[in-house]
């Protein structure tokens, strides 16, 4: 169990940010941290890693105390079994891929472990290259492997995929899953991409204005889009926009909003607030992969 109740005031002015976070999370899982910018997601990771000291509170992982302000106890980041992947590439430019991984080891790196990590991230052929000659996606792959060298109990991923384009994101998500399956660290992944979180995470922690607002499975928090039955349910019209002869209708379906495009002429009197029902003669879904 990863358990914390932490408070920290960032900055001293009245307008500055107060983080008050409390949660109990299952270990060994991938936990998504979701919320708008400025919600305190990265600050939470910094508190968990020990890069920031809390003003008040405690942090325990599998019964081991890392911080407890009532005991005046604070474990330095160096002493915590933490892996941290930053949004910006943080590989050491003076070291090759293999040297970056070897440097992360406590003493001398176990060569089998080095080979295993290089194989999982598919970088065996680039082991002697410097970070400057690697692409962004490759650098994050190495940084991810480096974060796992010390077999951390807690792996913190701070928007590691934000700076990458869609294709590389998707392949890195696969690497994250593969590495997680192999080493099973409790993983906290910050992202504001719902699809990414739904794909990777077992559990979601939602934050807003420095507080935890909800926790739950991705389904319970984001709704289940696959169960909308277009032919059986009726929907309320939220907004209407006309675009190139098409009528774009925004509908409320359960907890989700859905936009559908219809022929302009077929719905002459439709207005916001109307309740509508779709039948399969008027709306046919075709499967075309593009």
């Amino acid at each position, binding site marked *: 169990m990863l358990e914390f109740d932490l408070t920290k005031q960032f900055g001293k002015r009245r307008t500055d940010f107060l983080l008050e976070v409390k949660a109990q999370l299952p270990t060994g899982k991938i936990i998504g941290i979701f919320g708008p910018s400025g919600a305190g997601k990265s600050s939470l990771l910094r508190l968990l890693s*020990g890069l920031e000291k809390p003003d008040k509170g405690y942090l325990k992982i599998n019964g081991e105390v890392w911080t407890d302000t009532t005991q005046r106890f604070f474990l330095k*980041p*160096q002493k915590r079994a933490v892996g941290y992947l930053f949004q910006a590439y*943080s590989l*050491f430019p*003076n070291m090759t891929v293999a040297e970056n991984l070897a440097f992360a080891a406590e003493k001398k790196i176990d060569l089998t472990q080095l080979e295993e990590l290089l194989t999982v991230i598919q970088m065996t052929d680039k082991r002697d290259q410097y*970070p*400057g000659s690697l692409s962004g996606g490759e650098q994050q792959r190495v940084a991810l492997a480096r*974060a796992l060298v010390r077999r951390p109990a807690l792996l913190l991923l701070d928007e590691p995929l934000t700076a990458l384009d869609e294709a590389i994101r998707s392949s890195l998500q696969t690497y994250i899953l593969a590495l997680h399956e192999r080493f099973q660290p409790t993983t906290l992944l910050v992202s504001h991409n719902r699809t990414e979180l739904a794909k990777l995470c077992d559990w979601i922690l939602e934050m807003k204005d420095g507080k935890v607002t909800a926790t739950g499975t991705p389904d319970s928090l984001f709704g289940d889009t696959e169960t909308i039955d277009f032919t059986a349910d009726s929907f309320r019209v939220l907004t209407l926009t006309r675009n190139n002869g098409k009528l774009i209708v925004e509908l409320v379906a359960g907890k989700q909003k859905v936009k559908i495009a219809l022929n302009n002429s077929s719905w002459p009197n439709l207005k916001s607030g109307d309740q509508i029902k779709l039948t399969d003669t008027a709306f046919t879904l075709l499967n075309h992969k593009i």
Partner: protein
Amino acid sequence: MNYAPIILSFQLAFVTTLCLLIIGIPLAYWLSESRSPIKPILETIVSLPLVLPPTVIGFYLLLVFSPNSGIGYFLKNTLGIDFIFSFSGLVIGSIIYSLPFMVHPIQAGLRNLPENISEAAYVLGKSRWTTLRRVLLPNIKPALFTGVVLSFAHTVGEFGVVLMIGGNIPGQTRVASIAIYDQVEALNYGAAHQYALILLIISFVVLLLVYVINGHYFKKMGRAGI
């Protein structure tokens, strides 16, 4: 021609640069990381020699180390060290005078490193000392090199502080810049010219080396992603 002043100048520059490396690296590291309220005060003190006339620094050092002052009396009578009109006095003066030339490039180099790089090392269990030695310093080699060369060259070219605190004692405090002044005073323009030309050529070559090597270095480091 008497080469002693030239040799003395380089001895002074060598010792000063070595001391400055030892003092400058931790100082620049602290300044680049610190959020302490006393940081601006320390930064100001480090930069003062850039704007103060060297004679002001020399004058105050003279007062501090004079046997009539508490510190000077203690140094001379208890420890047996006399900084006035001595080589060690020149070293102290030169360290203070060239401090910004060592600290500023290193501080700028550390500040320009990618964010998170030291934090990445900390969460990998590395101490601040290991992080500095293995991660930070190797990535600011051009800045270190610039600091070393500028401090060295600046010390060779120093005049006012040396004259105030060291005077003009042959073999002890008569460095090349003082020797030139001395020869001109004596209307020995030929000898003055010899010293001056040697200093000019050496300074030119040293600075040229900095630009050539650093230019090459930046290109190499550019490939390495810095």
